[in-house]
């Protein structure tokens, strides 16, 4: 889950970069940047959940 979270973070950033570099229309570009951020938020949630380990479980 941890790896998936960080991969989603990278994937979201990739969407943002592609939106900036490839799209001309301001509306499309804004939409895809927001979509990329949405993917990043999903990745962040996964990364956070994968670290929800309390001390007894660690030990």
């Amino acid at each position, binding site marked *: 889950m941890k790896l998936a979270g960080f991969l989603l973070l990278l994937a979201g950033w990739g969407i943002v970069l592609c939106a*900036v570099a*490839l799209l001309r229309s301001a509306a499309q*570009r804004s939409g895809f*940047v927001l979509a990329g*951020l949405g993917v*990043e938020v999903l*990745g962040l949630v996964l990364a956070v959940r994968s670290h*929800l*380990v309390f001390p007894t479980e*660690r030990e």
Partner: protein
Amino acid sequence: MTSLQVPALSEAGTALCLVCILLVPLSGAGLAIINTGLGRSRSAAHSMLASLCVVAVAALVYFICGFAFQGYLGRPAHILTLAGKGWSWIAAGPLFLQGLKLDGSPDSLAAWLQILSVGLAALIPLGSGADRWRLPAICASTALLAGVTYPVFAHWVWGGGWLAQLGANYGLGRGFVDAGGGSSIQAVGGLTALSIAWIVGPRRGKYSPDGMPTAIPGHNAVQVLLGCVLTLVGWLGLNSAGAILFTGIAPTGTVLVAVNTALSASVAALAAVMITRMRFGKPDASLVANGWVSGLVASSAGCASVTPAAAVFIGLVAGVLITFSVELLEARLAVDDPGGAVSVHAAAGIWGVLALGFVASSGAAGQWLAQLVGIATLLGFVLPLTYGLNWLLDRFLPQRAPLEGERLGMDVYELGASAYPEFVTHTEEFIPR
């Protein structure tokens, strides 16, 4: 003037910039004292020594390779062409500051400011790793931050990199704007702090077996509040010097920068006082201190671009945000962050960057989108990079102190002597046997 032009500094402007840069170490001193005061007494000397080591390692590594990777406006860089536009990814300067004349020119001033700023960024994770982060690992992690993470992102923001060029290349406002380092210093440091908190895990005894957090209060509230005063002075210098060197404001514009910085911190602290008084019945000194610093952090990105009224708004939101964010991270997300570094520096830094896109007085079209792209880069590139580097480091050099270190305290375990040998009894009420 756009952020892609090297500022032309008069003699008076250069002198003002020098004075501002001289103030910057006070922000680091303030952060070090705050981190120490919010930690346990049994790790106080360790915390201060680690702060000194962090600043030293960061300065040295940045001198060796950091500035070569970061560069400055007008200096050579590696450029990748994508869809007909040039994307500057990393600077191509020589190592060891070779070829840089240290004569008061804007690039020499930028190099000096950055040697101090990278130390400030590297101090931030000490707050989240307090009481259990080993000194050798702290130094190694700092080297990775100062040699890789910080310079790469700072090049994109301040070195004429692709984020700064979003305006010129794609019509997104003036490109990504961050005068005082809300992203490149604070958010980078804050996200590294999150990575460290994840990698070293919570302090033993912080969470009960069913996941309920235990309060482990800081050992010296006076120290923490004194640190707040020092950070204000340092931040006035940091924001002013950054605004002159990286956004090209005239030296007279530093008045606006100083007013915005002070207002944002003041309102954030008062907001934290009000919120904690409403929620807990009495103001909470550590959260108010965190609120104060979060106001400073949030002011950084837009200090030269927003009106004082907007700075008040930015500080107000930062102060409110921080009180809830600290609790969310500790109680719900199991992030043991004794210094509140993740909330104060990552959350408030990102808020400041975002706010600039909506309340900047220039009102350039597309500015909000440029700021969002910067935030996406912080979350999608900087966080995985800094986590990955520290995770790898942890494979070779374990970052967390063993149980014995936490039981004795990091002072005795790593330094052989306590910070307060005459006054402290080492209680073990938080250590499960």
